[in-house]
């Protein structure tokens, strides 16, 4: 169903986003970014094996952590800003202490708080649920809820039939409710207190759902699939209520060239490059089933503006972020400037800063 809504963006009132700061310093693809709860600092993790803490207003580096696992897939900062959790292809979720000010005593010694091992396969996504609990999703079809104080897992959630690719925690009831999307094409709703899923949504018939994000009021969520389709589901109505077609993106930005595969960039299903230079690009064909399994087209990252009116989406086929109007289902604008695919887009908690981390090793900060 289409939402009829009168207050469309006119050409004079279209929000124009400016790139204020470009964070240069990584030597390889930026894979994950997270805003600090103070809305000023930002943490980027790249495939060069470093995690850098930046001041997003000045562009200065504040701190540096050398990662144990350079194949990072996701990072998240605790609500009190003291810890950072990282998950990667080495099946472990590692939690570090986070310093936003350069501290001479701590500069060279990273302080690991916890190493959580328990998943059988790669960790695709993770999120803090409170200051000392983390939920991780993994390629072993499960999600695990960890407690930092106890130093162990508190519950494993089984219910998906394929790799769990993304997890999003309820924005208001952060302690308990979360949703996960999987390559079995279902989105499941979970409650920490209940071992089984409490709701299940089929989001696509043919394609994996690679990324999802709760709407800021916590009653809806947006899910992106590998075919580039983007849908809005509602928990109150128990069904799909919005659709943001990939054909509109094609119309606006042109049909993408399938050069990702020609360049030999293999992308696995959780928006990370596995191999960049060593694959024999000449031999790879689009029809190869291995490439079909590894290469993830479609939606890589979704985030909402503070009110949820705008939705920032990065696609694997484009090097810009598409800004959707959630209500009217139209493309409002785009964030152009990166030279390569944007692996993660994040809006700060106060809604004023938008950060994009790209495979061209840069992170850019945008605002109105």
């Amino acid at each position, binding site marked *: 169903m289409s939402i009829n809504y009168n207050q469309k963006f006119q050409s004079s009132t279209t*929000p124009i986003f400016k790139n204020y700061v470009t964070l240069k310093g990584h030597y390889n693809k930026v894979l994950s970014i997270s805003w600090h709860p103070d809305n000023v600092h930002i943490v980027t993790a790249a495939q060069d094996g470093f995690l850098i803490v930046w001041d997003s207003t000045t562009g200065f580096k504040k701190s540096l952590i050398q990662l144990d696992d350079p194949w990072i897939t996701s990072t998240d900062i605790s609500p009190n800003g003291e810890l950072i959790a990282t998950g990667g292809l080495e099946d472990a979720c590692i939690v570090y202490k986070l310093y936003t000010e*350069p501290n001479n005593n701590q500069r060279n010694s990273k302080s690991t708080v916890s190493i959580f091992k328990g998943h059988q396969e790669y960790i695709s996504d993770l999120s803090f649920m409170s200051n000392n609990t983390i939920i991780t999703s993994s390629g072993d079809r499960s999600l695990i809820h960890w407690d930092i104080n106890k130093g162990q897992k508190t519950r494993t959630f089984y219910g998906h039939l394929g790799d769990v690719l993304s997890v999003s925690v309820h924005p208001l009831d952060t302690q308990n409710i979360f949703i996960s999307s999987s390559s079995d094409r279902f989105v499941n709703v979970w409650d920490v207190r209940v071992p089984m899923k409490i709701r299940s949504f089929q989001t696509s018939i043919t394609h994996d759902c690679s990324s999802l994000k709760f709407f800021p009021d916590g009653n809806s969520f947006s899910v992106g699939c590998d075919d580039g389709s983007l849908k809005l589901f509602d928990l109150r109505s128990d069904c799909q209520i919005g659709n943001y077609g990939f054909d509109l993106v094609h119309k606006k930005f042109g049909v993408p060239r399938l050069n990702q595969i020609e360049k030999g960039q293999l992308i696995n299903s959780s928006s990370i490059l596995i191999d960049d230079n060593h694959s024999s690009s000449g031999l790879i064909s689009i029809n190869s089933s291995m490439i079909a399994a590894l290469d993830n087209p479609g939606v890589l990252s979704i985030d909402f503006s503070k*009110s949820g009116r705008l939705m920032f989406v990065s696609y694997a086929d484009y090097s810009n972020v598409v800004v959707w109007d*959630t209500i009217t289902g139209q493309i409002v604008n785009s964030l152009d400037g990166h030279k390569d695919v944007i692996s993660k887009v994040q809006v700060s908690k106060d809604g004023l800063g938008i950060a994009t981390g790209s495979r061209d090793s840069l992170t850019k900060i945008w605002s*109105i």
Partner: protein
Amino acid sequence: MSSNNNDEGGDADRGKMLRILQLNKMKSMKLERLNQYNQRLKTELGRERVNVSNSSLLIIKYTENTWDYLVPVIWGALPPEKNRYQRGQVKTLRKEDGSNEGCCVIV
């Protein structure tokens, strides 16, 4: 001879019975699965739902009532004093002038 014939006939009957039993088992399992599916659909039907039009209106209400400067059509332009990125650029210049504290130097 006749007893042998009877035995063969009995074997055939037994095989037939077995096949029928197996078929029966399969059918009953299928029925059970369908009943479970039916039950699931019934509980899903019994769940209280909000009309899609209503939840859409609630979403619109939320977007209109939540302060968000990224949507100037509702909230007006962001006042420059609230834009920390413009302030940040001034700060950068000041830092280049004098003190180099507050930043780790990476060449």
